[in-house]
């Protein structure tokens, strides 16, 4: 019952899905202990960031039906907020809060403007405009190098407590050294859980239902008494704010930020793909999709290395399986996942359970 309310009464509605979600939750909760090593922990942290980022995008895309390519812009704003204030104000919690506050404020204003603009032009035009705006923003971030570190980005320090050099216990616990990096991971973990549950609540609120109505038929939604501008703009702002928070999480984890890290179009496409693989219009899809995608992306090269060695007898196959061509396989993954998961993993699992 408590769980049901925590999940805003939006149950997985498929036993397999429930199991998957549980597995993901447990794996992430104990990642430092289950999967040792720096790389595994980075992958887990990246998953946490992406779950929030993708879920926030799903609010816009899956629930409201707005296709925007400017979502990484807000992600970047969040990351830059932390990066800039930490590098200017020094490694203290005040700087983190200032950075967070400032970036949320900027995102609020920008997303408000974009949300209003989305009503003036048609969907494709809006998508293309946001694409252009996002690329302009990336250029701007590179150009304002005094402020943003330009293309090289910013490396900065954070409060001692969540820095790798801080050790709060001498002895490793279960083979894992108890240091600031671990604390930082759990900070991210808690943030991700809270933010995702919050998004789940929003999409299952009366407001969330209206967003779906607008997605389906904007004209009729207005006719039955919903002021579409208000709902769309609110959704745009909310999703931007969540993306900003995801960006802040990223910066806190990496203690670095640059245009390619948080603003690139590549990330935008990854996010889109995750939404589609996971299942549009289901926050759970974001979680499942993010795990699958980030793991695949992070270990594809390792996998290919094995394949490459196995195929060393067949030179042409080995050439294609070369780890240097990992992008080729990522592209194939794009195509296949659109082919085989038209309604996403969540959609597929739910449809199967419904039979």
């Amino acid at each position: 019952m408590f769980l049901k309310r925590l999940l805003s009464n939006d149950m997985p509605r498929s036993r397999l899905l429930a199991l998957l979600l549980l597995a993901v939750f447990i794996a992430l909760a104990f990642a430092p202990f289950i999967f040792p090593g720096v790389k595994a922990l980075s992958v887990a942290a990246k998953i946490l960031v992406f779950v929030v980022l993708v879920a926030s995008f799903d609010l816009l895309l899956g629930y409201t039906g707005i296709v925007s390519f400017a979502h990484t812009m807000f992600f970047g704003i969040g990351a830059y907020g932390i990066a800039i204030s930490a590098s200017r104000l020094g490694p203290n919690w005040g700087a983190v809060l200032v950075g967070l506050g400032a970036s949320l404020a900027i995102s609020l204003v920008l997303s408000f403007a974009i949300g209003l603009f989305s009503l003036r032009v048609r969907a494709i035009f809006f998508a293309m405009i946001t694409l252009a705006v996002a690329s302009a923003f990336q250029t701007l971030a590179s150009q304002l190098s005094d402020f943003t570190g330009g293309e090289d980005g910013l490396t900065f320090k954070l409060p001692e407590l969540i820095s790798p050099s801080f050790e709060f216990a001498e002895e490793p616990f279960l083979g894992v050294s108890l240091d600031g990096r671990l604390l930082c991971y759990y900070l991210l973990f808690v943030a991700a859980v809270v933010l995702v549950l919050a998004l789940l609540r929003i999409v299952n609120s009366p407001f969330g239902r209206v967003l779906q109505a607008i997605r389906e038929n904007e004209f009729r939604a207005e006719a039955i008494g919903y002021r579409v501008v208000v709902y769309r703009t609110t959704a745009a702002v909310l999703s931007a704010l969540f993306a900003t928070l995801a960006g802040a999480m990223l910066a806190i984890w990496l203690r670095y930020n640059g245009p390619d890290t948080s603003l690139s179009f590549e990330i935008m496409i990854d996010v889109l793909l995750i939404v589609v693989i996971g299942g549009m219009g289901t926050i759970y899809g974001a979680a499942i999709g993010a795990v699958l995608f980030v793991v695949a992306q992070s270990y594809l090269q390792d996998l290919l290395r094995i394949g490459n060695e196995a195929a060393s007898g067949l030179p042409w196959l080995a050439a294609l399986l070369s780890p240097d061509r990992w992008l080729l396989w990522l592209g194939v993954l794009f195509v296949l996942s659109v082919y085989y998961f038209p309604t996403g993993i969540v959609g597929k699992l739910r449809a199967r359970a419904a039979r």
Partner: protein
Amino acid sequence: MLETRDLTIRFGGHVAVNSVSCAFAPGTLTAIVGPNGAGKTTYFNLISGQLKASAGTVSLDGHSLSGLSPSARTHAGLGRAFQLTNLFPNLTVLENVRLAVQATRDGAHRRGLNLWSIWSDHKALTERADQILAEVALKSREHATVASLPHGDQRKLEVALLMALEPKVFMFDEPTAGMNAAEAPVILDLIRKLKKDKTKTILLVEHKMDVVRELADRIIVLHNGTLVADGEPAEVIASPVVQEAYLGVSKEAA
């Protein structure tokens, strides 16, 4: 009292509704008839705010509606069903109606602006929606998605959404078009029931003259955007302009 004064709209050089002034009192059902393209739907669009008038005003109970968005007009008490079916195709029948119920009734859901409660907790909405579906005989299909409904059922749902809004003014645009003669009575009965409520104003665009004859308290005729006749049903139907322009050199006027 719904009133339009000199309501006009031009599309380029074409005047689709030409200075129509008319008042509709509560407790009456006014049928609006006229040839195809006469401007009936456009007149509705002007009243409900889907189109902006080139000139003229619309007011409800003395308050001007001009300049308000369609959603604001819905809140002011106008309700509208569309001629060409216009629903939320991938939501279920029940959700369609529930959304309409939520839109106009106040409550903890704050007309859909509540971000932080769980939607299914608002049970009253579901109950009301169920009730309406029962009235239009769609209860058995409440979990079907709209896109899979046959045409006739979609027309019924169109009417159900209007009922859910509980407006002061009901505007029906050919509610029974494409509906089987055995099914149409469900809708017509609903309209009859509405008529009994003397606080409701009903506007009905309909081409089936037997329906008009039976239901209407008053008929107005639009022709080329202009109001050309207004009065008692029998009188209007008998007038030469209606006979000729609308009913044709009638073989079936009887």
